[in-house]
């Protein structure tokens, strides 16, 4: 990449810090330059976040339809999958899988609910109802 081609399309990171790029001059010699962001990258990031928003909305609908427990919704909000939830809570993966069923979730002890509430950073009451998290 030529130095004059260093992209300067202000992106989410550019507002906080510029990033180092390695660039060449006309004779191909390297130096570094600072970039504010690149539209190609910001759009890739946007695509990822649009997908996350869609997954959150679909999880929410599944919870409302009683096809999944509210854990699914909060997992999507926190970008977590079952192995990550298991790693943070200390539950086994098969336990988390079971807790994703509405019937099992309803019978969970307060102690277990509290663990989930902690990693999802919400009060236990919100965890049960998704209240205050209407998207």
């Amino acid at each position, binding site marked *: 990449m030529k130095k004059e081609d260093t992209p300067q399309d202000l992106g989410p*990171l550019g507002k906080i810090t510029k990033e180092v790029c390695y660039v060449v001059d006309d004779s191909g010699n390297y130096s570094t330059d600072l970039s504010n962001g690149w539209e190609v990258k910001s759009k890739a990031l946007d695509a990822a976040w649009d997908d996350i928003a869609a997954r959150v909305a679909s999880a929410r609908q599944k919870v409302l339809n009683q096809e999944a427990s509210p854990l699914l919704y909060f997992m999507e909000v926190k970008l*977590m999958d079952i192995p990550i939830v298991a790693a943070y809570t200390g539950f086994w993966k098969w336990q988390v899988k079971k807790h994703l069923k509405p019937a099992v979730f309803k019978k969970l002890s307060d102690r277990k609910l509290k663990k989930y509430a902690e990693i999802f950073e919400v009060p236990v009451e919100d965890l049960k109802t998704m209240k205050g998290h209407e998207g």
Partner: protein
Amino acid sequence: MKVNFEHLQAAHCENGVTTSLLRHNGVEKITEPLAFGIGSGLFFVYIPFWKINNGPAVAFRTRPGLIFKRTCKSLGIPVTRKKFSSKEEAARILDDCLRAGIPVGCQVGVYYLTYFPKEYRFHFNAHNLIVFGKEDDQYLISDPVMEQATSLSSYELERVRFARGPLAPKGQLYFPSEKKTVTDDQIREAIVTGIKRNVRDMLRIPGNIAGVKGIRFLGNRIRKWRDKMGQQKAGLYLAQLVRMQEEIGTGGGGFRFIYGAFLQQALAYHPMDELMNISKQFTRSGDLWRNVAIQSAGIYKGRLGSQQDFDVIGDLLNEIAELERNAFEGLSKIKWHS
């Protein structure tokens, strides 16, 4: 307590931590490209049956931790590395180091890294930063991807040091354990070791998923993505590829530009025309990777989407594979004088 330490911005976090810690230890001639090249940082792998964040598992660089380990080893510098099961002990040992005047490299997760923009905070656990002091409850942080040094409260630092999930850092910290002078001859030899190892990783790994063969393999897969998963999902997959390739830490062009810079800096230790020529091939390769990103963006922005548009990416990746194969073959044929 505060270690006398100079913050240094780098393209890539582990290169940056390695460079800063080595410079602090008196290896003044080390630079980010040298650390990356001596650590044989350039790589490619595409693991078809794995997914990361619901997208393809692609890496443009070697496994986290190896650059620091290999570079220090090649330069004859002993390293201390510790993991912890107890958060209290992890904090205590860190404080002990700071009190002893040692800046410390830490592996952290970025999901809870408060000074990162929200858009960048995924569950990625192989970020690296340096802790170089503590004032009241605030740890002083030199994060190589940031322009300025920053800080984290002890709770915030504990949280990122003990992020969970894949590649969980487990409080891991590391630093060179002895101050040693490194001679030009040592650097000269380390460069050769680094290049030879990189030739091996890019050309000689059996199977078709790693090295230049992996690039070709990914190209052939991408040609089929549109039919296999539909345009929407294929676009998301391409977006993830672009993020791995261009995001913060890569220096652009999937680390290819940093490697080109490395070969040029190697010239100072091995004056050979081949190095300059091969450096230019990596610049060309990085530029082609950037074209892959631009073409992919056309697809995930919805401007492009025909089978032909996917084939363009496949063709570009074939060209890149051939170019990088040539470049590494060229490196493997160099007769080093030492």
